[in-house]
């Protein structure tokens, strides 16, 4: 009979040495020291000094009986694996006679020491890692400057949120159409005003099958060509100059006339160049069932608006409408506290025997109401415990 690994471990601790291994109480009881005769049978049958080996030798009358060296096939798979694992980790705990194999394994692992190695006695001359003091005086490198992925100020107005969603939808539709990686649109933080006007003019007509590729309705052929040309450059190195070349023919004055008085004199500081609302709301009904599209949409949308979407919200979102609704809910004012509600309630204001406190009433307030607080403070002051 071959005992289990765990019992082996307990009985022959010098081989494996895993004292920390859990042994249940029954097994531990079984593994208690027994009379020698009984213990001999429990020993590993494969070991050279086992009782079966002795009997075998006695039967054949020679020290080298014929047949297999170990009729039981040697150590089991688990034992071998277990042994190898321990040979690498626990080296020093092993007693010398039991860890011959382990020693060889450890010596192979150890890196050969260099001949000219000289251990250091002081820190002088050693390599420095990091700044040992006054690191804050060093000017930051160009790579160390942090630039936020999102816009710095969160957008909360409803019209601007719709603009952001519309722009995102148009961009993603174009990326779908061009077969480009969707999230690469995020490399373009902000479009040129003329490009934005083209996007703004583009309408979304959701198809019946929910396909994003066929949802765009361009104002004219020229705009379609321009947009496709521009978005083909996205992901490349040089975007801005291309845009300028293409959009020369777009009438800027026309765009101004559309938004008229809404646009400020310095539209550069305003988000979306002063545009306040979208031309149509067709984008709201677009589906976000495709996980890749949803991820790309939320990434681009959060880049444009500055809002973060937690996982539960992301999970529950299925359409663009829900995204816009979620962000608008965030912008709602916090619910009033009960105390404010009660204090402003005319019913309680007219009741003379009801008093609503804005703050929580503590024991010290109660003390003051009873006139006890001044006595306590006087006593504390007399003992020098308060000033």
């Amino acid at each position, binding site marked *: 009979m071959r005992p289990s690994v765990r019992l082996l471990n307990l009985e022959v601790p010098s081989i494996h040495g895993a004292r920390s291994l859990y042994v249940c109480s029954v097994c531990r009881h079984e593994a208690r020291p027994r009379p020698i005769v009984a213990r001999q049978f429990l020993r590993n049958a494969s070991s050279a000094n086992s009782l079966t080996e002795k009997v075998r030798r006695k039967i054949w009358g020679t020290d080298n009986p014929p047949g297999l060296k170990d009729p039981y096939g040697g150590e089991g798979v688990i034992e071998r694996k277990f042994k190898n694992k321990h040979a690498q980790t626990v080296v020093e705990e092993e007693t010398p006679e039991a860890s011959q194999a382990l020693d060889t394994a450890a010596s192979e692992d150890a890196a050969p020491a260099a001949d000219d190695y000289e251990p250091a006695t002081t820190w002088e001359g050693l390599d420095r890692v990091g700044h040992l003091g006054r690191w804050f005086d060093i000017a930051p490198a160009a790579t160390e400057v942090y630039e936020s992925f999102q816009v710095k100020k969160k957008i909360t107005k409803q019209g601007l949120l719709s603009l952001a969603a519309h722009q995102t939808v148009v961009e993603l539709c174009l990326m779908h159409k061009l077969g480009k990686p969707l999230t690469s649109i995020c490399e373009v933080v902000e479009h040129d005003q003329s490009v934005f006007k083209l996007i703004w003019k583009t309408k979304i007509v959701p198809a019946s099958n929910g396909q994003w590729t066929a949802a765009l309705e361009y104002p004219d052929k020229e705009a379609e060509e321009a947009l496709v040309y521009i978005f083909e450059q996205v992901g490349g190195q040089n975007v801005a100059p291309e845009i300028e070349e293409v959009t020369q023919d777009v009438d800027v004055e026309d765009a101004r006339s559309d938004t008229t008085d809404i646009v400020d004199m310095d539209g550069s500081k305003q988000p979306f160049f002063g545009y306040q609302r979208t031309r149509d709301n067709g984008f709201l009904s677009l589906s976000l069932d495709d996980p890749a599209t949803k991820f790309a949409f939320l990434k681009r949308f959060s880049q444009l608006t500055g809002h973060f979407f937690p996982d539960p919200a992301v999970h529950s979102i299925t359409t663009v409408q829900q995204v816009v609704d979620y962000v608008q809910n965030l912008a709602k004012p916090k619910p009033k506290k009960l105390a404010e509600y009660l204090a402003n309630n005319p019913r309680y204001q007219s009741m003379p*025997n009801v*008093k609503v406190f804005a703050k929580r009433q503590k024991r010290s307030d109660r003390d003051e*109401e*009873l*006139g006890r607080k001044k*006595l306590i403070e006087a006593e504390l002051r007399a003992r020098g415990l308060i000033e």
Partner: protein
Amino acid sequence: MKRLQPQRWSSSVLSPQVRAGCRLQRRIQHGLRYQTTTTPFPVTEAEAKQPIQDLVPPPKKRSSRSAISKHSLPSPPVKAARESAKLAALHARLYLPARLPLETLARTLVDESADPNPDFNNESLATLGHDLLTQYTSEYLICTYPRLPMTVIFAAMYAYVGPKTLSAMVKEWGVELAVAPGGEVDPGHLQFKRLDPGVNPNQPLKNPNRPYENEATWRRSISSKIVYDDVFGEPVRASVDPRQQVQSADRYAAGVTPEQACSQFVRAVLGAIYLHAGRPAAKRFFEQHFISRHLNISDLFNFREPARDLSRLCARENFEPPYAKILSETGRLSRHPVFVVGIFSGKDKLGEGSGSSLLEARSRAAVASLKGWYLYSPLNVRLPNSMEEEGAAPWKPVHVDLGEVIV
């Protein structure tokens, strides 16, 4: 019957902003009584229901006090009364008339020991309330039980309007006691300066007006108690000599007991009701809160020798001398015999009592006879204060007996 008008006296009570001189002047005014033909207070229902805002001008702002912090005041400021929920709750709980403003109710809660200023404490209201209480109660007792002995009247007065009863009423009303008086204290708490620890509140009081006051072992007769002591037959605290009242600021320097402060508060409430809502409201309040309390007067008697008292009584009233007869008996030779003894005067049975011995049964019968005499109560009792109302029927004198037998 003459009507008493507390108008000039009450002017300082009704308007706390007016500094009506020192206590000395008020004490002198207290002694003066004025006769009038008009009643200054509402007597009709419609008049009494009129809200207080129409009758009393809104209190003026005290500009000099507004800059002072609340902690420096000895009692809560007047404007704090409107902000206190406890005060409004107490007003509603006691079902006080709407004409009694919260400011006055707050003033009744400030004891003289908390704020020595007579314009802001309840001392004047309590004086009025005490007079009203004792007058109404003594009228009720004497007219309802015209033959009560004086000691029983004292005990009944103490039981109806004594300080222990009044402080129990304060507890029932749910008024909390402030730990220490001050401007920051909620006006809904009863404020008074507590006695310092170690002070004996039950020190024997001495009345300098009383002759032989220093003779501690001398017996004090009931008659002398009627003359010199207060309505409960107990020695009064001090005289109201105006020359001594000047130092009254330090009279309460040691503080008062909660019992004293509570009784002063209850009296002040009655006085405030009388001043603000008029006599009918005060009488109603008195009936609802004082006379409605159950008191078994027959328990207040304590006879030492009832048989002798009864024979003296029969002699005084020209009855035939009383004699005792066994009405029935059982188990005379057993361990628990019961005798029923009746006391007769002539053919009239005065009383009957039972006991385990003949003597015990006879004295019980004598006690029953005496109580039957003393606790006589006429039908259709009419109190003298009913004559204060408009259109009262002509007064018929009530029967008041000679009183107890003096042996």
